[in-house]
């Protein structure tokens, strides 16, 4: 397999002006990832600052309801409230080792922007975050959070004024400023080497989960479930299990249903195309224009997905399913009430799939769900929906 490729997927479909920055990033990351000083410092930040390792919680009530042994990998307990910080601390530290003086990032709902602002503050690097104008209004609290953490939020008024346009704007900034700026991409998408770097920094989730479940159960789980937007939390928990006899299920945003135009399920409902630097699955029209997407979970509301997931879909190693907004919302309320854990709406998609499919495992079956983030950020939005807390 060619470097930077996952099967046929991935690659570097970027303007010539970005190539030197990508080549520099690949070389530096290759070097830094082997540097014991880098590992030592990242280890310190993950453990002492971010709160790793995160628990693998056995959920008694959920297990009773589902008829199998259910564990949650608690990324919601990581500092910042989601798995995003694993990647932002890793990349921000890498930027320091590279001598970069400024971080830029894109954000949709604001979670990655907040995680980048946290990492920038901790490591003393100024942060500018591109955010679609529509999202700055929908997620005003996260805009404030980023500003409180010292970051500058730049509203993006082009295109659909959402996440994909924020990525475009950040890439444009990087094209112009790559000499002193690191673009801290938030998911396992984009041109090589980003999917590789993000997977490396997120794999800590799966490494811990694998060790924890072996300690507790003396064997590997039967199934691991994670939600997939760009796919970083999923690739992080899947990757250490890829060579094991463990079923892996990625859950995409089914929105109002895959038979409608309102979803974000690029693997289940899209086709192969080049988007934002990589060949992968894409929600596109017949001419190759990216389509508008929809999900109740802003973090899954994106027309494409990381190229490694595209390969894992084609090979059949990972099964990709979609759950609807309504199923995710039900799971959001259900987990809150049943276990006292409010999941992010993104993570609620993984819980919703478990509610649908756990019956197949049997009472000795072991199911691990990646609870990628906590749901406090979604509480206000859900409160305004019909049904509220019900």
């Amino acid at each position: 397999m060619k470097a930077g490729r996952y099967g046929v997927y991935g690659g570097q479909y970027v303007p010539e002006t970005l190539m030197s920055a990508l080549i520099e990033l690949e070389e530096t990351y290759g070097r830094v990832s082997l540097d014991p000083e880098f590992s030592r410092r990242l280890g310190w930040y993950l453990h002492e600052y971010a709160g790793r390792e995160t628990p693998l919680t056995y959920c008694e009530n959920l297990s009773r309801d589902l008829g199998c042994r259910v564990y949650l990998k608690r990324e919601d307990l990581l500092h910042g409230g989601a798995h995003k910080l694993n990647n932002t601390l890793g990349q921000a530290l890498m930027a320091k080792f590279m001598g970069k003086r400024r971080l830029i990032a894109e954000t949709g709902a604001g979670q990655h922007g907040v995680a980048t602002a946290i990492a920038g503050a901790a490591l003393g690097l100024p942060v500018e975050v591109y955010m679609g104008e529509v999202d700055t209004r929908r997620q005003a609290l996260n805009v404030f959070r980023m500003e409180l953490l010292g970051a500058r939020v730049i509203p993006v008024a082009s295109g659909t004024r959402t996440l994909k346009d924020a990525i475009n704007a950040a890439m444009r900034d990087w094209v112009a400023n790559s000499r002193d700026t690191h673009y801290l991409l938030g998911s396992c998408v984009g041109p090589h080497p980003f999917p590789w770097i993000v997977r490396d920094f997120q794999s800590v989730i799966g490494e811990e989960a694998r060790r924890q479940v072996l300690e507790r159960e003396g064997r590997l789980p039967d199934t691991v479930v994670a939600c997939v937007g760009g796919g970083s939390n999923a690739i992080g928990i899947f990757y250490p299990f890829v060579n094991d006899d463990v079923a892996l299920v990625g859950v995409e945003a089914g929105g109002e249903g895959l038979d409608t135009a309102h979803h974000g399920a690029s693997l289940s409902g899209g086709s192969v195309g080049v988007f934002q630097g990589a060949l992968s699955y894409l929600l596109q029209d017949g001419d190759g224009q990216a389509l508008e997407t929809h999900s109740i979970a802003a973090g899954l509301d994106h027309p494409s997905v990381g190229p490694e997931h595209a390969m894992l879909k084609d090979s059949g190693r990972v099964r990709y399913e979609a759950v609807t907004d309504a199923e995710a919302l039900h799971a959001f309320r259900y987990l809150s009430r049943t276990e006292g854990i409010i999941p992010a709406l993104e993570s609620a998609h993984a819980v919703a799939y478990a509610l649908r499919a756990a019956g197949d495992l049997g009472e000795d079956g072991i199911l691990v769900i990646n609870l990628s983030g906590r749901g406090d950020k979604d509480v206000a939005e859900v409160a305004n929906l019909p049904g509220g807390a019900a």
Partner: protein
Amino acid sequence: MSRIDGLFARKNPVFIGFTVAGDPGIETSFRVAKTMIDAGVDLLEIAIPYSDPVADGPVIERAHARALRAGTTPDDVFALVRQVREHAPDLPVVLFTYYNIVYRRGLDRFFAETAAAGADGVLIVDLPVEESGEVAPSALRHGIDRIALIAPTTSPERQHAILREASGFVYLISLEGVTGERDRLPLHVAGLVGAVREKTDLPLAVGFGVSRPEHVGAVAAVGANGVIVGSALVRIVEEHLGDEAGMHEALRTAIKAMRCGIVPDPGPDIPRRERVEG
């Protein structure tokens, strides 16, 4: 001899104009192209509108959005190329596109349609040489030049690799950044032209940020064989959305002024050009 080779053989430097097909509407777009040609553009670059034009600055990005809102499809772009070809049989035409448009259509079909419409070259802005392996044979089979891009940050090794695959002319990106107008051209343009000139006999055209008559003159003065003006012309379209007559007039005036920035090479092979008014 191809239209592109023929142009650069008889004229130095050449003036290259850029327009987004379908901006602001499908029919107006042909009239814009016609005005640009009649005002003295030597080579026309026509962009296929795309939903996510990351290499472009805000002015051209808005043009892509206007063209898509007007419903412009790649079929419409090929139809526009046929109209331009009919209007100006000898004018070289280069399609400027993002790769997913090409990929989605299928490489061979895309280049076959490009050739059938009468375009001479294709510039795929987000397809660096590392990814262009499958595209090269397809373009060659249909006799389409693949216009290569070289940036100020392109290493000498990569310049060699890019030039090995290039044909027609080479597009030198004058600055680090996206397309768009700049007050001043960066100082390194002369160095870039000189460095690439040592490695190839292909004509060199400079673009990105060229927007004023004095930029055009400066680029020509450092030995480039062509200058490319994009955002400055697209902006004129944008500023005259409700006034098509004014749009054409402003385009004519701007193109004539910018062409005046070019000091013609007095070499013996260069025929006298029509006089341009300032």
